């Protein structure tokens, strides 16, 4: 039993690592294609059919590029920062159920690495640690723009941690558990049971905060190309930069898994159709990240802080209080 569990877990970890590293590459392809189509362009077309092998070309380029450590940087911290981003992104995946449990050759597989009873707390905590990637990378880079980006990153991530935590608190109060599997089972009854109907405010707040947590376009000021070059990634090249990239895209995918799990019924009753619907929801939320990047402008850092502390946080607190009153009476 123990060995079987160990082997199963190792296989799951390797599968998640491989699949989501590949998906991160594929995500860049989708992003470039979707953005191109929305801007009446074609996107990558020349490498492979419809540019599909562009990912391979980019991967070869990233892997074989010289690993440059510029003079003046704090080399040790500079080297470790991208690893923190990528590692924390993948560590958060440990508590996410990616699919309903299924039977493979008479062996029941739970596609979750570890169903710990503090799942959401763990994910939020690990995502909070993810802040150290941009922060340390930016501070160690000996570059003004990287430093600005690190400061912004710290401000944004810490502020929006509050929104994420407070907005998710109301659903947690309703479900009475921190495990994402319990969240899914709470909503297993069908569309009518989805938490989004009872917690629409929390859903919108969490969704908005997800953009800040992943640093995507309306809140992309951590690495805003037109004012601070690539932010904390300015001095990075080759695979170290690639690790930042993989971390960002893996984060987008994992957030896209978490939002439907918490608010939109997840994989429902665990049937094949439910699993398909779940993947559809995940695809929509990932697509929405790309969609907003094509449609919306970035906000200013002060507007972002204003939005967080003066608008979203009071709404989140009021939402929690009202939920508490409704549950009490």
């Amino acid at each position, binding site marked *: 039993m123990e060995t079987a569990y160990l082997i199963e877990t190792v296989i799951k970890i390797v599968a998640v690592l491989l699949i989501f590293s590949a998906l991160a590459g594929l995500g860049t392809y989708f992003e470039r294609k*979707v953005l191109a*189509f*929305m*801007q*009446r*362009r*074609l996107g990558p*077309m020349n490498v492979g059919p419809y540019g599909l092998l562009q990912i391979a070309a980019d991967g070869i380029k990233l892997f074989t590029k010289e690993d440059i450590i510029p003079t003046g940087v704090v080399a040790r911290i500079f080297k470790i920062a991208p690893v923190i981003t990528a590692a924390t992104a993948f560590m958060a995946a440990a508590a996410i159920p990616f699919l309903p449990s299924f039977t493979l050759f008479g062996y029941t597989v739970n596609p979750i690495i570890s169903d710990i009873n503090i799942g959401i707390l763990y994910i939020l905590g690990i995502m909070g640690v993810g802040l150290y990637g941009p922060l340390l990378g930016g501070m160690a880079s000996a570059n003004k723009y990287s430093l600005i980006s690190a400061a912004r990153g710290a401000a944004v991530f810490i502020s929006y941690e509050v929104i994420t935590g407070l907005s998710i608190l109301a659903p947690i109060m309703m479900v009475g558990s921190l495990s994402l599997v319990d969240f899914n089972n709470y909503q297993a009854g069908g569309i009518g049971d989805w938490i989004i109907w009872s917690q629409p405010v929390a859903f919108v707040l969490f969704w908005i905060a997800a953009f800040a947590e992943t640093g995507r376009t309306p809140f992309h000021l951590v690495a805003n190309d037109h004012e601070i070059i690539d932010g904390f990634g300015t001095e990075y090249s080759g695979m170290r930069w690639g690790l930042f990239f993989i971390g960002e895209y893996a984060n987008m995918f994992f957030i896209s898994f978490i939002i439907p799990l918490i608010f939109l019924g997840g994989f429902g009753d665990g049937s094949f159709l439910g699993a398909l619907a779940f993947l559809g929801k995940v695809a929509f939320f990932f697509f929405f990240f790309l*969609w*907003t990047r*094509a*449609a*919306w402008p970035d906000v200013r850092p002060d507007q972002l802080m204003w939005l967080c502390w003066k*608008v979203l946080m009071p709404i989140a607190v009021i939402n929690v209080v009202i939920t508490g009153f409704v549950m009490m009476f």
Partner: protein
Amino acid sequence: MHSEHNEQVITKEVPVKKGYYLVDIEDYPTDGWGKFKRVVKRTLRGELFVGLWVVLREMIKFDIHTIQYPAEKMPIGPRYRAVHEMKRLLESDTERCIGCGLCEKICISNCIRMDTRYDENSRKEVSEYSINLGRCIFCGYCAEVCPELAITHGGRYENASEQREHFIVYEDMLTPIDQMKAGTQQEFQGFGSITPHEDERVKKTPLAY
């Protein structure tokens, strides 16, 4: 400050053209309640969704404007000034260039060099002629000054080279004789060229009034 600006617009009395109108700019709110109202109004106006719809509409319409360059090319205008061409005479298929040297003289970047000699019929002919494309700025003066419409600009704009000083020589620019025989020599339509239907517009000089 803002209200002053409004007054200015009114007192100036801008002559309003037909179909034009002045955009109505609201005053900025100064008190907290006004700012709050503005935030609520902007939040619920749904402009973000308009933006989302616009890009989604373009994606669904799939009206792609990309030209996949090496495979597809835009048509270029007849007056396009790319790599030079040397034309042949329409009547005799011989070279139009008379070796007058005007193009060499007028070239402002000194990229044209030519050498002439007398041929066996005691006619002047061009023995050497080269254009340094590394220096040429494609201003078109050579084509403009040419009295015989011999040197013109062509449409060949892809001139990548192994060296910066890429030369073209007379033989490369001259219309190939088989193309000339087939009647496919393209006349330059740009400045200095003959306008279409020139023959019909020629008026005979009257002998007496």
